[in-house]
């Protein structure tokens, strides 16, 4: 009894939150799962039944292994537990196999590996230096942050309904951020290197890591005005960093280098044959670009400036096809997106180098990298917005301005995930969970910053409230109208364009805040 009361006393709220969300995840087991479920089952089968030399060549299923080697090893490890559940799921030729035991195993594997995420959140909460004044538990920044991270709507539906393993990957990322906050730079660098070899999408934020470690770790001191002091450069630190990254990479890619398969691995990891946008446009700059192109082409047709015969047919039903032909505006190539992304990232990198503001500045730069590559990247998935949302949660509890950007970004970003779940039984779940998270995040952050100016101006409020009617139109009105057959892509188009506006706005506002905010030193004196 005493042990029980210790467990439930004092700091148990974190445990309760974590257990609560874990139980909710268990309740989500019978929900719909996407083809990603089959993707991961196939990878289990590949890694379990084939030698390493075949992992990146096997192509029985269309869902070939396209994650870096550590993830393959992760699946290999999982498969050794899986064989006690159902041997059949480990057969490469058993396409689309999903017995109830397979389902149970795969779902539970996500839930269990989320333990790392929970631990990372716990570590992150330690880094938050909250105001000490508030006594009420529910108004403490730590409490709010842990709810925002643990109960994150996007992560819940992407991992536990749609099916992916983002939980522990984001766990690694948050843990490495937390280590940088705690001045354990080597550990942070190591964790991030490992993470990169789990899923290469995190390459997007690698510039922030590289520059930050170089600037604030390899240079041990600054001049009083914050500018760089070149003579404090520490070679030992640089070499140890390099060695860490090199060793991790060697461990991951070494076997494939030995097998002379590196080009094959890379061709699997970076498939540039896909289109500019995913079937459902991620709400980024290109969604706006495509929409503008479409509007211009319609106007052009009306004004007889364009010849209808020259317009490619597919462009009028886009949103459903992968290759999108632009009619008015110039078409976009991978190289263009790469250049745009680099240009978008550069200012934040410069800022990190010339105006270092400690770990918070790094975090800001990391989020900007993630957001910029989301805005301009090639074939971006809507899920990639989580890469910006989760680290942004850390910033949101610190400053009212950040909280405002976070709320706009999160609400629109989460809403843009809605098309991932299109089946009727999941409709109430996504709406309820979204409401739960949105109402909680907005109200709790408002309470936290109630003494400062309001978080939203009238325009932002209007925009966010507009998401409600949009959802009602897309899910409840549109299916009953006659347009449903003629223009089935309209809800997706509206959703992605509407959300693209909000995310672009948040990206812009964050950029402005990076350049206009006073450096840390000055705010401390105030």
């Amino acid at each position, binding site marked *: *009894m005493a042990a029980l009361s210790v467990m*439930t*006393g004092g700091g148990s709220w974190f445990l309760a939150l974590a257990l609560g969300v874990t139980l*909710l995840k268990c*309740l989500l087991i019978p*929900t719909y799962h996407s083809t990603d479920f089959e993707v991961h089952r196939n990878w289990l089968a590949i890694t379990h039944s084939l030698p390493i030399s075949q992992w990146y060549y096997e192509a029985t299923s269309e869902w070939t292994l396209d994650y870096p080697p550590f993830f393959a090893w992760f699946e290999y490890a999982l498969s050794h537990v899986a064989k006690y559940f159902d041997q059949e799921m480990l057969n490469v030729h058993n396409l689309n196999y999903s017995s109830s035991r397979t389902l149970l195993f795969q779902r539970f594997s996500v839930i269990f590996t989320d333990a790392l995420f929970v631990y990372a959140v716990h570590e992150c909460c330690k880094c938050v230096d909250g105001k000490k004044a508030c006594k009420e538990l529910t108004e403490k920044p730590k409490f709010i942050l842990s709810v925002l991270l643990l109960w994150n709507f996007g992560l819940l539906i992407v991992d536990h309904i749609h099916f992916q393993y983002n939980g522990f990957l984001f766990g690694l990322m948050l843990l490495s951020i937390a280590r940088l906050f705690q001045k354990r730079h080597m550990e942070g660098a190591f964790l991030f290197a490992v993470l990169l070899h789990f899923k290469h999408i995190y390459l997007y934020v690698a510039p922030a890591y590289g520059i930050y470690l170089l600037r604030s770790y390899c240079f041990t001191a600054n001049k009083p005005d914050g500018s760089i002091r070149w003579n404090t450069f520490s070679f030992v630190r640089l070499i140890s960093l390099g060695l860490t990254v090199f060793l991790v990479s060697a461990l991951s890619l070494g076997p494939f280098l030995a097998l002379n398969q590196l080009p094959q691995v890379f061709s699997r990891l970076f498939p540039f044959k896909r289109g500019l946008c995913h079937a459902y446009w991620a709400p980024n700059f290109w969604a706006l670009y495509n929409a503008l192109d479409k509007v211009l082409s319609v106007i052009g047709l009306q004004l007889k400036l364009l010849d209808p015969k020259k317009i490619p047919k597919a462009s009028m039903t886009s949103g459903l096809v992968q290759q999108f032909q632009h009619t008015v505006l110039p078409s976009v190539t991978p190289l263009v997106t790469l250049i745009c992304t680099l240009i978008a990232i550069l200012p934040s990198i410069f800022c990190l180098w010339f105006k270092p503001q400690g770990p918070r500045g790094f975090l800001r730069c990391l989020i900007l990298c993630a957001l910029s590559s989301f805005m301009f990247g090639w074939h971006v998935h809507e899920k990639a917005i989580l890469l910006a949302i989760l680290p942004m949660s850390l910033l949101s509890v610190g400053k009212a301005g950040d909280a405002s950007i976070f709320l706009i970004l999160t609400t629109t970003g989460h809403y843009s995930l809605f098309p991932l779940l299109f089946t009727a039984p999941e409709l109430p779940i996504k709406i309820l969970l979204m409401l*739960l998270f949105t*109402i909680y995040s907005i109200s709790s952050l408002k309470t936290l910053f109630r003494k400062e100016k309001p978080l939203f101006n009238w325009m932002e409020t209007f925009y966010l409230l507009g998401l409600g009617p949009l959802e009602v139109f897309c899910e409840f009105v549109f299916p009953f109208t006659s347009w449903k057959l003629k223009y089935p892509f309209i809800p997706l188009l509206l959703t992605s364009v509407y959300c693209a506006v909000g995310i672009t706005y948040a990206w812009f506002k964050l950029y402005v805040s990076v350049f206009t905010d006073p450096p840390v030193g000055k705010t401390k004196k105030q």
Partner: protein
Amino acid sequence: MEKWYLMTAVVLLGLTVRWTVSLNSYSGAGKPPMFGDYEAQRHWQEITFNLPIKQWYFNSSDNNLQYWGLDYPPLTAYHSLLCAYVAQFINPDWIALHSSRGYESQAHKLFMRATVLIADLLIYIPAVVLHCCCLKEISTKKKIANALCILLYPGLILIDYGHFQYNSVSLGLALWGVLGVSCDWDLLGSLAFCLAVNYKQMELYHSLPFFGFLLGKCFKKGLKGKGFVLFVKLAGTVVASFTLCWLPFFTERAQALQVLRRLFPVDRGLFEDKVANIWCSVSVFLKIKDILPHHVQIIVSFCLTLLSLLPACVKLTLQPSPKAFRFTLVSCALSFFLFSFQVHEKSILLVSLPVCLVLSEIPFMSTWFLLVSTFSMLPLLLKDDLLMPSVVTTMAFFIACATSFSIFEKTSEEELRLKSFSVSVRKHLPRFTFLPRIIQHLFIISVITMVLLTLMTVTLDPPQKLPDLFSVLVSSVSCLNFLFFLVYFNIIIMWDSKDGRNQKKIH
């Protein structure tokens, strides 16, 4: 309320859990020829929609009463009719006479689940939120925590959204009744309670405390003056609401009698399946059903029920107070559950509702009771393939209660409301100080037994000679627990006023 957003979050969380549970299987899914309660509810829609009101309760070629004949009061029938109109609008096949029998499809399941959620959202959940907001002498945070625990009570969620029933309607109406009567809106309260009784006759378990409490109020105001006026008003409300509900059946004597016969099937047995009450547990050793003739069984069960609930009810009538009312509701419903005739395992929900209302007053005992009540329905839940949601929601409920009330720190005599009882026992037995510790140990033993029995039921096959071994064990263990709770609640009620007086002296 400055923390309205937390309350909203709690309600949304409750709704999310409800809907996720509803994705699971329901009773009798894919089990012809009889199916289960899901089919019963669908069948009632079919009957009420296609047949004239006069034939609803009568056996006919179109209405085979052997196949899930309507045996709930008129309000349920009207509710079914309302749902049937919606079903007709969406897909007429769902309620086509005869041909829709045993209809099952994903879309239909979605529709049925949605009707439960909507009814719950309209009736039960607002009542719970209002109840928590009206609680006195506790902080806003505690009120919200209280709402969270009540909304997460697994028993109701599993039966309504897993097994499939509309208990949230009848329980919600009863809760509105309790709220009304406690806040001195006696007429509205009694109206709500009459509606509850007319939705599900099992609500009669709660009727005696209602009667006693209202009668006590009348006495208090003086039977010659205001009290009499109140009494007449109340009687008028009750008669009027019953008349309204039964209006279509009052046209003929035979109609009303037939409905009553359907509602109270006395010719059915003393108990059905494996219920965690006295009769079922005693039957393990002594086959009462065979020993005693049918009418004697009825008389014995009636007398025992009356005996066990009489003291509490009499006390409530003499000293009416909202707090005593809630406790009496518990003990009275528990007496009915344990001793009365023809009890279903799901009837334990009628006890759980008032226990939820006293959750903030005696968190430790209430949590314990609510856990046992969910456990007592285990065989039913397993039959419906609801193991996973049962375990998960029970754990969630336990964690919610444990963290929001820190129940393990609240096991002193004071917090168990046993102070005055212990004081009076100590007059004879000076060393009587070990009661809280005994209760703590009993709790641990009870929880361990429940966990072990659950594990055994799930993993082991029962021996061939005793196929019902585990379900009998579950019901007997639950029954023992319930008996203990009956004694406990009666002690609290009987020693309550002394407690109050003591507290007044102290202040």
